[in-house]
C-alpha cells in the first residue's frame, strides 16, 4: 500500500506538514469559489499537483469514483428543483439550465479539492499523517485513536473475511430472508467480540512494555528551503484563483 514505492516523486520531498496545510487552505478557498475561470484554474492546479505526486492515474481515478457517482446524481436531480430558464420537461418536472450549471459547478469544485487532497495528503503514508497532525495541537487521544485505527483496520478486515469464509463453506447464501439477517447479526456480534478480546491483549502487551499514555516521536520533520518554495508556490496559486473569482 506504499504509494511512493516506485521512486520518490517531486512532492515527496516536501514537508508533510506544509502539504497538509496547503490542502486545507486550497479546500477552504476553492469550496467558496463559483466562477468558471476560477474553477478551471483550481482544476488545472489540482491536475498539475497530481502529476507530481507519483500516484498512478488508475489509482487516482478509482479513488475519484465515489465522488463522481454523487455528482452524477446531482447533475440528474438538481435541475429538477431549480428555477430560472428551463431546458425542457420530464414528466411533471422541468429541467432547469441554472440547476444544471450549479450541479456542474459543484462537480468541478468537488473534483478539484479531492484530487488535490489525494495528490498532496493521500500520497502520504498514513502514519506520517498521524505524525504531522500531532504537530497541529490535535488532542493526543485523537492522534492515538487515528494511529491505532490505521494499525488494526486491515487486521479486522481479514478477521471479517475469515468469518465470512467460515459461513460460506457451510453453504450460506445471502437472500431476502430472516436466516440472512440472523447470520449477519451474529457475524457482526462475533466480530465485535473478537475485536474486544484483541484490544485487551493489545493493552496488556502495551502495559508490559511500560506504556503510560504517550507515544514518543523518534524522528522529526525538518523545514527546509524547498518547503518555503512550495509554500510560496501554493500561496501564489491560491491568490491567482481568488483574483479570478473576486476581481
Amino acid at each position, binding site marked *: 500500500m506504499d504509494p511512493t514505492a516506485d521512486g520518490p516523486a517531486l512532492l515527496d520531498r516536501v514537508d508533510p506538514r506544509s502539504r497538509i496545510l496547503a490542502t486545507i487552505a486550497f479546500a477552504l478557498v476553492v469550496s467558496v469559489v463559483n466562477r468558471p475561470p476560477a474553477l478551471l484554474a483550481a482544476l488545472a492546479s489540482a491536475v498539475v499537483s497530481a502529476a507530481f505526486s507519483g500516484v498512478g492515474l488508475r489509482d487516482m481515478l478509482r479513488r475519484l469514483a465515489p465522488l463522481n457517482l454523487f455528482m452524477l446524481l446531482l447533475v440528474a436531480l438538481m435541475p429538477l428543483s431549480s428555477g430560472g430558464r428551463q431546458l425542457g420537461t420530464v414528466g411533471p418536472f422541468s429541467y432547469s439550465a441554472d440547476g444544471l450549471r450549479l450541479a456542474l459547478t459543484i462537480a468541478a469544485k468537488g473534483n478539484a479539492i479531492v484530487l488535490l487532497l489525494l495528490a498532496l495528503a*493521500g500520497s502520504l503514508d498514513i502514519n506520517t499523517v498521524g505524525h504531522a497532525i500531532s504537530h497541529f495541537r490535535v488532542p493526543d487521544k485523537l492522534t*492515538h485513536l487515528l494511529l491505532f485505527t490505521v494499525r488494526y483496520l486491515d487486521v479486522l478486515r481479514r478477521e471479517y473475511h475469515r468469518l465470512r469464509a467460515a459461513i460460506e463453506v457451510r453453504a450460506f447464501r445471502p437472500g431476502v430472508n430472516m436466516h*440472512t439477517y440472523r447470520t449477519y447479526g451474529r457475524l*457482526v456480534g462475533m466480530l465485535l467480540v473478537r475485536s474486544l478480546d484483541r484490544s485487551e491483549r493489545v493493552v496488556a502487551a502495551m502495559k508490559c512494555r511500560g506504556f503510560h499514555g504517550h507515544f514518543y516521536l523518534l524522528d522529526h520533520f525538518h523545514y527546509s528551503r524547498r518547503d518555503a518554495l512550495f509554500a510560496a508556490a501554493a500561496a501564489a496559486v491560491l491568490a491567482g484563483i481568488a483574483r479570478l473569482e473576486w476581481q
Partner: protein
Amino acid sequence: MHIAEGALSGSLAGVAVLGAGWAATALGTAIGLRRMDYERVPQVALLSSAFFAVSLIPIPLGVTSVHLVLCGLVGLVLGWAAFPALLVALFLQVLIAGAGGPTTLGLNTAVMATPAIAVYAIFRRAVHARSETATFLSAFAAGALGVLLGAVLNAAALALSGREFQVVARAALAAHLVIAPFEGLVTAVAVVFLRKVRPELLDAPLLATH
C-alpha cells in the same frame, strides 16, 4: 450517507450548514475524548475498525444490494466515544477512498454520530432488559431509529442549503427509509448475541440462554 465535497459551500446557507456540522462534531468529539481514558483508546480503535469492516457487508435486496451503516449499534457499543471514532473513520475514508472531503468532514461526522448518541441515550437501559424478546425489540428500534435519524439529518442538511437540493434530499431520504428495517434486524440479532456472549460490551447483565 456522505455529502460530497464542494456540494454545499456555494451558498451562504450551505456554508452555515457546514459550519454547524463542524461545531457539533468539535463539541461531540471533545466530550467523547474527555470521557475516554488512554486505556480505552485501543479498544475504541479496534471496535471502530470492526464497524469499518462490517460496513462492507452487502445485504441483498431484490436485484440490488445495500450496505450496512449500523449507527445505532455504534452508539450502543461506543457511547460518547462514537464521535471521535467516527471522525477518525471518516477522515480515513477521505484519505483512502476519496469519499467525502476536508470541508464536509465535520458535517458528515455529525450526521452519523448524533444519531448514535441519541440511540445511546434512549435505548441504553432498554437493551439491558431481562427477557430476550424485550431486548430484541428495543435493539430493533435502536437500529432502525439510528439509520432513520441519520437519513433525516442528511436530508435536512441538504434541504437547508438551498431550494436546488430538495429533490436530491428527498431521494436520499427515500433510499435510507428502505434500509431501516434491515438495519434494525441485524442490530437486534447482534445485541441479543452480545448480551449472551460478551455483555460487558454493552455494560449489561448476562442474558440467560435456554
